[in-house]
């Protein structure tokens, strides 16, 4: 699913050039569940940005499901994000002026063949699957933290992705909601979806089949 070889990413900060990732290589097979841990500022978000096709590497090669992502144009990258990847973030951002169904159906808005009734139908089904059937017409501000993160899972699944990228998904959840979220992730992985999760939470990292540690711009097997 993911083949990343010798990835480098550096940023220009005025006179200084900051190297975030250095000669990073990673292989993730279809159906894998990988957790990446690392200190703050280790470059976890940058790695997720590259793997999620939101940015391109300074050098190196990245192939997602066989496509050479590092050489795709802006609109091709957007299409990959829309069709192949689902994101779950630490802060489950929603659009405040849309109800939950429209928020979950947002993928459809940017899909080439947008069919609003069909998109809304699918969003309702996904929200029902994550136990939010009673919240369909609610605005995001009316949901609890746990409900928002479950809605974020529904949204990530909307485009029927091959890969889910989760960035500190339980960072804002209490123990009970973290456990619910962990079991949701396990179920998705069992259904064949590849999951790559960045987390601080060792308990959460523990549910992954493989754990990696991001240190000095490179990935190493976690101790």
């Amino acid at each position, binding site marked *: 699913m993911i083949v990343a070889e010798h990835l480098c990413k550096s940023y220009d900060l005025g006179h200084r050039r900051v190297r975030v990732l250095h000669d990073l290589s990673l292989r993730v097979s279809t159906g894998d569940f990988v957790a990446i841990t690392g200190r703050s500022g280790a470059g976890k*978000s*940058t790695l*997720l*940005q590259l793997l*999620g096709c*939101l*940015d391109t590497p300074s050098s190196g090669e990245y192939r997602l499901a066989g496509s050479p992502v590092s050489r795709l144009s*802006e*609109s091709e990258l*957007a*299409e990959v*994000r*829309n*069709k192949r990847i689902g*994101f779950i*973030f*630490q*802060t489950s*951002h*929603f*659009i*405040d*002026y*849309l109800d939950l169904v429209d928020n979950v159906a*947002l*993928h459809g*808005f*940017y*899909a080439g063949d*947008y*069919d*609003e009734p069909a998109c809304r139908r699918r969003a309702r089904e996904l929200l029902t699957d994550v136990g939010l059937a009673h919240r369909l017409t609610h605005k995001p501000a009316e949901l609890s933290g746990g409900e928002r993160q479950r809605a974020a899972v529904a*949204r990530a699944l*909307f*485009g029927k992705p091959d890969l889910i990228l989760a*960035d*500190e998904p339980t960072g804002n959840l209490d123990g009970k909601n973290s456990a619910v979220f962990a079991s949701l992730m396990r179920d998705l992985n069992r259904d064949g979806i590849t999951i790559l999760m960045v987390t601080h939470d060792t308990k959460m990292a523990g549910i992954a089949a493989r754990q990696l540690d991001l240190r000095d711009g490179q990935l190493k097997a976690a101790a």
Partner: protein
Amino acid sequence: MNHPAWRYLVSAARMWRHHRLQALLSVLGIVAGVSGLVTVMAVGEGAQRELERAISLLGAGTMVVKSIVDDERDSRIMMERVEAVRRILGTELRSLVPISTYQRNLLAGERYVDGAKVIGTDRDYENAYQLRLHRGRFITWFDIKRTERVCVLGWALARDLFPQGQPVGQQVRIGRHWYTVVGWLQPKVQADIEISDFELPEVDRAAYVPITTIAADRSQIPLDELVLNFATEADMIKASGAVQRILEFDADGAAFEYTMPIELLRQKLRMQRIIQYLLGGITVVMLLVGGIGIMNVMLVNVIRRRPEIGLRRAVGATPRDILTQFVIESTLVAVAGGVAGVLVGTLAAFGVAALLDWPVAVGAGTLGLGLAVSAVVGICFGSYPAMQAASVTPIKTLNQA
């Protein structure tokens, strides 16, 4: 509707509905600017229409010469000179209307009208003032030639004298003589045109008689007014010097008052236009302020909605999609302001008409321009914030709390 533009429009409408106060604050400037624009345009269009109406009513080549009779002077245009003007100018003149006005008491049966306006004139008067007959005929060449005691009555005057019946064929005593009524004019809607000291005659309350009949001394008929009508305004201006020389030549220092109503109207409109340009300048400034208002709100929006932008990018939006979304949002709110501005401006234009007594006209072009200008302001001033939005880096914004 599945067109992308429609989808963005619906999305923008939802966003502004949710953030009503922001929408209101961002459009105030546009409302002021567009309403100013509509008012200014309405004043301009009203002035133009007034000019056109005056031209159709008087003819562009109409010149009025008046006798001056006051405590110091007694300059009267004499009928014999009028004939000289007719002979010399010949075919350049379309019509030449001598007018001699009197105040007379009128009597018909039991009915009596005190101090009515009696106009001694000839047959050209009918065309010069575009009179329409309800019954009968106007003064003819024969009436002038044979000094017939006939008269034509204005609509209201005839109604006063003959409340029940038909005036044509009846006898009316004008001053000390009896006249036969030969014509009855249609009521004339008085054109609401003010041209400096030039007044259109009160057609409805006047009686018209052959000028040769009413004058006491037929060899020396003094006129109050002479209306000359040329084919074009240019002909009139060209001939005006000659007219003056013929009328005043060897006339014991007589001097008359020459008026070109269309020229006077043009002068008045030129004054209005200067004020219009000043207001137009203020309007442009207001539109700029309105545009800056929208830009300000949209820039704040971009900062506030960075997570939304990141989210949209993550689910498949390109920077171009984000740019389009923000431009449509700013354009929608600006056009909404434009609609409000058009309404306010229309009301303001009629307010101007009522307060300053200026002619105004709100045409479809004015309304269309108001909306188009607001859309252009929305697009122009929304573009920079939209470019800022399109350049937002997604992941960083998504990790913001």
